[in-house]
């Protein structure tokens, strides 16, 4: 399995704070890699640094062999990287349709892709011409994910998609992401919900204090309770 995304010795400073302190990670093609860790460990900063939203102070980031650490965010997006931020960041003054029209950068909306998305997110069809700002939190998250998958992407960076959502919506989102995974997507996902992480993840990376402190298969971590307790402070079983 080839690695689609690679980070080597990546450091990121935000103001006078040294957030990422030498990150080395690889995201294999066609797999879901979960990025776990406590609050403030540097997970969101990692995604934002990959996306070019914060500039890496040193280190190398490569996507399908191309160096991207010095590229501007729009150029990284145009290489086929979709980004779902933690805040969802839907354009609340725009309608659902307009949000997706903007996301479909290179042409009109593809009806087949839209129908596939509506299969998961029927609310988006229902509220097609409604302002995104009037959607519920779950519906906004659907729109945010739909925006990232409206066109084929090489890599999806997804930041805590289940945060603050009702359990029923979390379950449905997991099903949706599984389907995206089955279609061969490569995903790097930050997640605090261990159940969701276990359901979706092929690989797992655990961060602490701006470094990767564990890497391996999700199945191995899920079956190793002492390791979970040591790295994450609680077990997956306790979280269910």
């Amino acid at each position, binding site marked *: 399995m080839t690695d689609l995304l690679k980070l080597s010795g990546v450091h990121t400073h935000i103001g006078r704070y040294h957030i990422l302190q030498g990150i080395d990670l690889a995201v294999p093609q066609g797999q879901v890699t979960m990025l776990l860790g406590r609050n403030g460990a540097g997970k969101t900063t990692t995604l934002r640094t990959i996306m070019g939203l914060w500039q890496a102070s040193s280190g190398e980031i490569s996507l399908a062999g191309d160096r991207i650490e010095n590229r*501007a*965010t729009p150029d990284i*997006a145009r290489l086929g990287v979709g980004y779902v*931020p933690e805040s969802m960041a839907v*354009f609340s003054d725009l309608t659902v349709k307009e949000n997706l029209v*903007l996301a479909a950068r290179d042409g009109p909306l593809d009806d087949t892709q839209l129908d596939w998305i509506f299969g998961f997110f029927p609310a988006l069809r229902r509220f097609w011409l409604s302002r995104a700002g009037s959607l*519920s939190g779950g519906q906004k998250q659907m729109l945010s994910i739909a*925006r990232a998958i409206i066109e084929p992407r090489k890599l999806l960076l997804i930041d805590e998609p289940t945060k603050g959502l009702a359990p029923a*919506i979390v379950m449905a989102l997991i099903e949706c992401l599984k389907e995206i995974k089955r279609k061969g997507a490569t995903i790097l996902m930050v997640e605090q919900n261990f159940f969701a992480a276990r359901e979706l993840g092929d690989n797992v990376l655990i961060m602490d204090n701006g470094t990767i402190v564990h890497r391996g298969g999700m199945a191995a971590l899920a079956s190793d309770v002492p390791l979970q307790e040591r790295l994450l402070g609680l077990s997956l079983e306790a979280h269910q």
Partner: protein
Amino acid sequence: MTELAANDPLPKPKRDVAPILLPIALALLMIPLIGSTSSWLTLTAASLAMGMMIFIMASGLTLVFGLMDVLNFGHGAFIAVGAYVATLVLAPFAASIQADSLWVNLAVLAPAALLSMAVSGALGLLVERVLILPVYGQHLKQILMTTGGLIVAEQMLYALWGPQIIPMPLPSSLRGSFILGDVAIAKYRVLAMLIGLAIFIAIQLVLNRSKLGLLIRAGVENREMVEALGYRIRRLFLGVFMTGSALAGLGGVMWALYREQVHASMSEDLTVLIFIVVIIGGLGSIGGCFIGAILVAMVANYGGFLLPKLALVSNILLMVAILMWRPRGLYAVTSR
């Protein structure tokens, strides 16, 4: 495939019409206070014309703040430069301006306005690249840089054209008034209303009916996410900045014709006025800017007629009242 359990009905979006009703209510309230219907109609027409000119000058500023988060205290320079550049065309063709034919007048006026817009837009490009690019995201430095730019531009105008006030007479065919019974409405004010309204409609169409407009509206709300979708928003910033500068130049020509004179300090006088309009309207909101401009003009005209001594502070009082009612302006667009 699972259907998400998220089909709760949406709350009906509330149409916020209160700001739209505000100038209408103010105008109606003035009828008994002014007493004479003809005076009221004349003042109302004057307010609408003045409001449209202020809107043209302020619209660029509100978009620039909303999209680029730039506090451009030098916006007034584009207004003054626009007015001065127009004299370069209007002065040599003074005879054509004084001709009795509307078409001959317009044949001079239109190129003068277009040249003003082109020069102001080009100056906008220079200002953005030289003064603003190094201070993106730093409001205090933006204020210092753009205020400095305004002073430099003003002194350059003094150096090039001299300190004297330059007359800019109205074209013959735009002098005089349309008489409707007892009411006289100046022809130029009607033209100003039509141009202002046309620009407002054009901006609304671009913002609401085109992908470029979608990008601008999305960029006003969240620039970072627009970039994460793959759009090079810096180029869009520059285009909006130049368009805003060009509109300010057009507004400068219209204002100079309204006052029938040009002087370098007009930029300072108008900067305060257009900032009041932009703040009242809500930073980044074109609709708010449109209503704010009409309100400011109404307060100036009605206030000047009823309470001349209050005219100097009337706009500040209006801004205080609006911000006490809506602290982020009539229509808040940005989260800033």
